[in-house]
């Protein structure tokens, strides 16, 4: 089991590191997606099926598309074809500063949190239990999130569906 965890960790961290090191933005984006898939594998390893599949559906299926479309649509320099500009000292310093700040925040969060000793029996992780927990304790929040997302979806559809360009032969 530990061996599998090490493999997954190497995949996750390796693809994340390669995503940062590569010069080609699309390759970086695809490796980032691989890293997300590694996170899903880690959830599977930990026995959290539902979260793992949700992770793949949301990150690998949906957010990956947003990232890829964003990369393609914001690409300005046709000649340099997605090459990142050469690193300067200022860039390196600012990157290291941001990275160090983030590492400090996360390290302090990890160090200051107290982990309870694991329960003797593994908690039940079947989907029904997750659903009941969500609905009973967080029912209102779930409802509000659902309504907001549905309204956003309908609003986006209404905004995007312009009638101006329709002509007579556009019958759906």
């Amino acid at each position, binding site marked *: 089991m530990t061996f599998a965890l090490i493999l997954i960790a190497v995949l996750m961290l390796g693809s994340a590191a390669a995503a940062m090191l590569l010069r080609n933005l*699309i390759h970086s984006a*695809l490796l980032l*997606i691989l890293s997300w898939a590694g996170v899903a594998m880690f959830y599977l390893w930990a026995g959290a*099926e*539902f979260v793992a*599949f*949700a992770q*793949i*559906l949301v990150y*690998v*299926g*949906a957010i*990956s*598309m947003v990232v*890829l479309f964003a990369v*393609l649509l914001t690409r300005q320099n046709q000649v340099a074809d997605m090459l990142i500009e050469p690193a300067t000292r200022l860039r390196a310093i600012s990157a290291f500063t941001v990275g160090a700040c983030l590492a400090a925040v996360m390290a302090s969060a990890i160090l200051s949190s107290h982990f309870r000793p694991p329960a003797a029996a593994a908690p039940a992780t*079947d*989907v*029904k239990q997750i659903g009941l927990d969500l609905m009973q304790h967080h029912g209102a929040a779930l409802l509000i999130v659902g309504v907001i997302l*549905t309204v956003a*979806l*309908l609003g986006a*559809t209404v905004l*995007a*569906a312009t009638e101006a360009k329709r002509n*007579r*032969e*556009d*019958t*759906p």
Partner: protein
Amino acid sequence: MIIAAANSYLERAPLEWRDWAVNLLPVPLQWLTHHLITIVGVLAVFGLFFAFTTVAERKLLGRLQNRLGPNRSGVPKFSILPWHLKHKLFGLTQPFADAIKALTKEDIVPAAADHVLHFLAPVIVVAFSLMTFAVLPFGRNIIPVDLDAALLYFFAAGAATELAIFMAGWSSRNKYSLLAAMRALAQLISYELPLILSVVPIVLVAGTLSTKTIVVNQGFWTFGFLPHWFIFTPWGAAGFLIFLVAALAESNRSPFDLPEAESELIAGHLTEYSGFKYALFFMAEYFGLTALSGLGVTLFLGGWQAPCAFLEFIPSYLWFMMKLVGMIVFFIWVRGTLLRLRIDQLTRLAWQFLVPLALLNIANAAFWVLTSHWSGPLQLVRWAVSLAIVVIPFLVMGRSLTAGYAPRTYRYAP
């Protein structure tokens, strides 16, 4: 009678054969063989199913277009054999000839292409479309992996196809391939939503994400011949229709085959693919279609359940396959009948018509669950209200969206 049918030898046969084969091996290898046999079984059955789907499609399309379809390929003469089967076998060996042709063709990769991604795209698309078969209950006892979150798994495995299409389009280093990949993605993303929303009512009513339990919930018959399949409820019928349209679009089938419209674009994002890589994409498309049809059968058409009580003696996996073949033939029929849509018509149909209807259908299913204790004459009210919730918006929205545009008039050149 039900218990007798459930325990008949034919029901248990596939599992018993597998266990017999597994027990032949030493204990450390048994776990591995158990899963390998399952994988090989799925690959063999659906590989052959794919092969004969292509020949059935070509023959049926031929009949629909008043021609014969492939009927020439027989069995080749092997020089070592003393006899030769001269019969053409109705052209049923055509898929094997096609496979050999695809394997021996030159594999052309554009010089500027991204070789790794160009190679990975067809591999990923086939691998993930095969993974979706893992959670389909093919029979009473036959399900490759019995997951608690099976439905979520099915859609998660299908999500990787979009990535593969992007990789295919981008790595070809051809601007038309990239544009076509964007069109294909727009279509897939648009129809992913109605597809998933059309399935939510089933989850609401069955109260589970497990495909196995969903099929079990559709068991039993009223009077012994009226099956309790979900399609025979107002929300189920509406959901099934939305599912059918979305499944057609998700699997790039006519009338939604614009990503690779053969007659207008040269296969869209697959322009730079040839030989066996193209065949892999082709295969993945059929696997996707078969898996989605299997999901439709599982969710709406009762899965492996027999339509009447007295037909239970036929093994459950044969019922599943019969329903699956029915769905595939229906899809081929649609392909031979309907005309291709334009991209704006396609996305408009998804966002303005199917998504609102699917959302209403979820409310409908909620109503159905809340009124499940109604009985007697109230049962009629329940059916009428549920039917009204889907039919009235369908008519109103259909009328208002086509107002001023329909019925369509055709003008011919003088």
